[in-house]
């Protein structure tokens, strides 16, 4: 019942939008009717050419439409950039979190760099890497790096000393302490950082694609603007939203699984 009630407002708005657009209150360039968006979206999903087993595999053909291609391209960039950024941030964070000396040396630098939005690096990224995937991946990795780093450092530094004392009492040396106590104790923070990080990566990928590359969802909606294809722009935005939802959902399920021992998950 609650779910149905939740659908009322969106449905009413959608109908209102359709009616107003069809009545000519908005021009189709400003706000095309939702039905036109849906048609355009559906067309974007379909493969452009008929299936020919001689030239390509079936699944390759299924995903050969423009939108699947762009979605896969964006997703691949997010994942690659995320792996680069998080892959660097976690070890660095563990190091800075464990060593007070290194933390003291590097934390002022972090405090200066951290508030700079990754988007502000775009000009520099283009100067350094030119156009194409390298600057895009650099920006996405950067967007992932800081949230993961900051959370990893915090996670390591807040490990409850009672666990350290208990482990020392049971004879743990420093490697065991790190691997079996500090690492798992910090993992809720690290994973929270990753969730923020992949969210940032997803924002950055759209912007980076608008600037540096010639495929992907970000590129596609900017391209559609040049032709004033507002239905395609809105359709692309919808796809971006769905993709974001999938990524966050997957991340959250991974969290729930990895942190099934965690108190916060009690239901």
């Amino acid at each position: 019942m609650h779910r149905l009630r939740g659908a009322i407002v969106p449905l009413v708005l959608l109908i209102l939008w359709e009616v107003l657009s069809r009545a000519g209150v908005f021009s189709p360039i400003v706000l095309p009717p939702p039905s036109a968006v849906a048609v355009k979206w559906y067309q974007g999903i379909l493969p452009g050419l008929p299936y020919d087993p001689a030239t390509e595999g079936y699944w390759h053909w299924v995903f050969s439409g423009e939108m699947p291609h762009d979605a896969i391209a964006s997703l691949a960039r997010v994942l690659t950039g995320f792996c680069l950024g998080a892959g660097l941030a976690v070890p660095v964070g563990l190091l800075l979190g464990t060593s007070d000396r290194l933390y003291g040396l590097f934390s002022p630098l972090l405090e200066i760099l951290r508030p700079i939005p990754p988007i502000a690096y775009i000009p520099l990224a283009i100067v350094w890497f030119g156009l194409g995937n390298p600057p895009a991946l650099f920006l996405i990795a950067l967007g992932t790096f800081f949230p993961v780093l900051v959370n990893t450092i915090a996670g390591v530094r807040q490990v409850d000393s009672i666990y350290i004392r208990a482990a020392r009492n049971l004879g743990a040396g420093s490697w065991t302490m790190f691997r079996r106590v500090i690492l798992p104790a910090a993992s809720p923070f690290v994973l929270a950082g990753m969730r923020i990080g992949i969210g940032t990566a997803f924002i950055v990928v759209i912007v980076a694609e608008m600037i540096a590359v010639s495929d992907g969802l970000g590129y596609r909606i900017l391209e559609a603007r040049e032709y004033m294809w507002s239905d395609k722009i809105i359709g692309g935005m919808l796809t971006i939203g769905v993709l974001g939802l999938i990524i966050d959902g997957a991340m959250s399920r991974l969290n729930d699984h990895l942190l099934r021992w965690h108190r916060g998950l009690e239901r």
Partner: protein
Amino acid sequence: MSAQIEIAHASKVFGTGDGAVPALDDITATVPEGQFLCLLGPSGCGKSTLLNAIAGFTPLSAGQIIMGGRPVTEPGPDRGMVFQEYALFPWMNVEDNVRFGLDIRGVPRTDATVTVDRIVATLGLSDFRKRYPKDLSGGMRQRVAIARILALDPPVMLMDEPFGALDALTRRTLQDELLRIWAEYRKTVIFVTHSIEEAIYLADRILVMTYRPGRIKRDMTVEIPRPRDTASGEFNALKRELAGLVMAEQQRFTSAELHGAAVD
């Protein structure tokens, strides 16, 4: 290794200068192998500090702790510690918590499993092996904490108000369990509590400590045969005697607290 603990002129001062707090002042006592000793006193009497010094967590300012002829310098599994806050590793299930110390010691997997099976059964945890600590009650958690150190067969067990956070009935059950384990494995136990009844119920010997600086106010042996009846005349006579000693220290603690002295 002999499980005798010697506390030799142990003193501990926290902080320096005007803010210095004398926690322990020249405590000397010998705890023979197999003895169940309770450290009893109000908050701020240094009983936990002394226990932490024996565990090797807190270095003494002067004096030393000697175990088996050697001075204690660091924590070790020969002095297994049970904390009031359980301190179970929440990311490990019951079984892995109990196995943790055996892994560190390098016990082969199959031998470790045999030990874990036995210890888990001893503490009545067999049905909970795969549970995570968050899904256990306080009493169950403390059973796991005891199992975790027992798996390493330490000659000495150190217990820092282990049952302080439990309800009265669970508490009594675990006290009985502990006595059973102590009788079966003949460990030396040093048990910190502020409960007079708990001390009399459990201990062979009670050290009553004074409030700040911690000194030994009374060193007494409990002669009542086990199992002890908390309602018996001799139990209550002892309780009355100890209450007088402890409450005098508790009053010193309260007035210090009311006058703004730092509390540990």
